[in-house]
Each structure stands twice: as structure tokens, then as C-alpha cells.
């Protein structure tokens, strides 16, 4: 059963590299921003998978905190590019 977790993690890392293409190439700030948001939401699943592989449930707490931090960071960057300041 650990094999399907390892294969899932490998596939997720591959999709993260696919998103990284848009971060490097993509024209303008908005394309890069949405690609970074996608990478962040895939990292949450990767954290849960790592927690299941090593048998440590503490990774679920890290995933919960990472979800909230990722949302706040994306919202702050969107606000900054829209108005020029975080206000």
C-alpha cells in the first residue's frame, strides 16, 4: 500500500514541474501568480502523502497551516499588484 503513495508523490512532483514551466516562461505577473498558487495547493497534498508514507500524523497539522499561509500569501500578492500597496 505504500507503493501507491510513493507513485502518487512522484506524479505530484511531476505536475509541480509542469506548473514551474508557467512560472518561468509565463508573460506578466498574473500568469506567474496563478501558477504559484497551483504549486502551493499541490504542496498541501504532497505534505499529506509524506505524512502517510512515514507514518507521522503531525504532517496533517503542517498541511493545515500551509493551506492558510498559502491563501494569505496569494491574497496579499494579488492585492499588491492591484493597488501598489497592501492596504
Amino acid at each position: 500500500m505504500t507503493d501507491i503513495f510513493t507513485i502518487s508523490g512522484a506524479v505530484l512532483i511531476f505536475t509541480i514541474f509542469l506548473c514551474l514551466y508557467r512560472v518561468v516562461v509565463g508573460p506578466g505577473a498574473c500568469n506567474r501568480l496563478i501558477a504559484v498558487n497551483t504549486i502551493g495547493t499541490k504542496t498541501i497534498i504532497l505534505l499529506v502523502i509524506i505524512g502517510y508514507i512515514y507514518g507521522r500524523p503531525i504532517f496533517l497539522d503542517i498541511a493545515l497551516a500551509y493551506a492558510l499561509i498559502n491563501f494569505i500569501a496569494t491574497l496579499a500578492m494579488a492585492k499588491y499588484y492591484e493597488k501598489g500597496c497592501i492596504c
Partner: protein
Amino acid sequence: MIDVLRIPAVALIVLGLFFMIVGPLGLIRFPDFYTRAHATGKCDSLGEALILLGFILYADFGLETVKIALLIVFIYILTPTATHAIIRTAYVLGLRPWRPGEGRR
């Protein structure tokens, strides 16, 4: 009992991985910013919810189940909100939507 539940768990994880692959494919292939946001915003929410649902079915019932259910609720609220904020930023900055016949941008 648990061994019976592992079959739909693996099926849900594989289905979620399909959506997780399709989303970045749209992020690479689509011609415009708004269509890329359309691809990633929905595929990410659905794929992550399916994978986490598979993890709920795999594990025993306990504190982990509650935490993963909370993670699903957070993702279903936060990911569309973040996508909406980024699209509003692009609209305010003046990006025009893509029309048929134009080149890739």
C-alpha cells in the same frame, strides 16, 4: 472491513491524480490568462478533494479523519477565493480576454 474500503480509496486517489495532471496541462496549453485560471481553479479543487477523500477511506477513523475533512473544507473555500482575487487583479490591470483568431499570449 478496512481491506474492503481500500479498493474505492485507491480508485479515488487515481481519479484525483488524473485531475491533478489535467490542470497543469491546461495551464501550459491554453492561450490566455483567463482560460488558464479556468483550467487550474477547478481541476485543483476537485482533484485535491478526491485525493483527500481517498485518504479518509484508507485511514482508520480518528483524529486524522477530522483533520483531513477540515482540510477539504478549507480547500473548497480558499482555492476558488484566491483564484477569484487573482482574476480580479488581472481585470483591474487591464488584460483583455482572448478572442478566436488571435495569437497566444
